[in-house]
């Protein structure tokens, strides 16, 4: 009963692609049913007419985080084996802002564009085509940004360690922040002129 199952060798390597498929299906189903296949719904979060993205996103991240912490506490999962992505400070910030600009112009992010494609959104297909091109451009221009890409490596930091909080305290603070944000966004949503889509 100790996870993560695949790194621990409890589930054989052969199964992981089947699992990937199943997890992907669940992921896609939930995203699409929440409305993430519509770019105008996604963009709503930036113009105040629809905060679905924020709600789903925060709820999911926090639920998974709390679940992970409990699983770790009970010894069901070895938290030290959970992949924590490294922080390359400048690359993360520049990359994040670039993605933000891409988000507001393209109206999708990679996962949601897949949902869009699945239900026949042509703009999502073009977006994904753009992404392929973008990755190609990045790869070709990689020598130019190599310094930023590999520089300012802060290592695999956890945010609660940076803030000097215990995981539990950080979790409850984040929960409160999220719940307050949900209330505020509901108020904003009611004030902003509705956009039909």
């Amino acid at each position, binding site marked *: 009963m100790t996870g993560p199952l695949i790194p621990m060798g409890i589930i054989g390597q052969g199964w992981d692609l089947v699992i990937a498929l199943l997890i992907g299906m669940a992921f896609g189903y939930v995203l699409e049913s929440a409305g993430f296949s519509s770019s105008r719904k996604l963009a709503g979060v930036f113009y105040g007419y629809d905060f679905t993205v924020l709600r789903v996103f925060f709820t999911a991240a926090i639920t998974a985080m709390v679940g992970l912490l*409990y699983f770790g506490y*009970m010894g*069901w999962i070895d938290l*030290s*084996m959970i*992949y924590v*992505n490294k922080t390359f400070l400048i690359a993360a910030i520049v990359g994040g802002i670039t993605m933000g600009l891409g988000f507001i112009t393209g109206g999708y992010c990679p996962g949601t564009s897949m949902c869009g494609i699945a239900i026949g959104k042509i703009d999502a297909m073009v977006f994904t085509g753009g992404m392929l091109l973008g990755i190609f451009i990045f790869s070709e221009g990689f020598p130019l940004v190599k310094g930023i890409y590999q520089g300012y490596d802060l290592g*695999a930091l956890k945010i609660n360690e940076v803030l000097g909080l215990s995981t539990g305290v950080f979790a409850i603070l984040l929960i409160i922040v999220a719940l307050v944000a949900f209330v505020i966004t509901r108020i904003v949503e009611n004030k902003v002129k509705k956009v039909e889509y």
Partner: protein
Amino acid sequence: MKFKHPNRSFVAFVVIFVLVIVIGLLTINKPDLKYKLSIDESVEQLMANEDKIYPEDLVGIIEMEEPGYVLIDLRNPYEFIKGHIAGAINIPTNSILSKDKLKMFNRYAADSTVVVLYGQTQLEANGPWMILKQMGYDNMKVLLGGYHYFTTGPLDFYDMPEIPEYLVEEPAYDYYGIMEAMGSKSGEDAGAVGQPQIVIPVRKKKESVVEGGC
């Protein structure tokens, strides 16, 4: 997702999830057996190189019926029945950490009885001995040579070879000499991957072992 009553389903999901966690918390496995010695302490204790019982001494102990010793045979019951050192108790390696056995070891520790562990060879007893030692059972000792030597090797206290066979960590050959004789150029390992290299150990803070990803 189509739910007839989304809120009811939501409540159901949430309740199930919370229940799983509550049950998990209630059935949390109790802390397993613990070590008393830290790793550094057990390295120290290994370097002290005590806790060895020489087979020729054991002969004396058995003959004189010296009190304060107990022999534990770690081999499996089948081997035990086929033959064992007189007076030995059979506790197969697998079961040394079972509750009643630990109770027994605690008793021996309390009245400072020396527990002599043996397997077929010394190697067989080495792991169990180290584990029990690290758990704080100071009275554990290992029979050098194991059952094999005890039943086959010379045991006359006054007439032992200079390096008895049971001291397995002694080089059995003159490695350097043989390599020289067999044509290794000036001790170099010809045709080898590379020179042996001395690694200077660095003291370092412990770091998390696991890196993510594949």
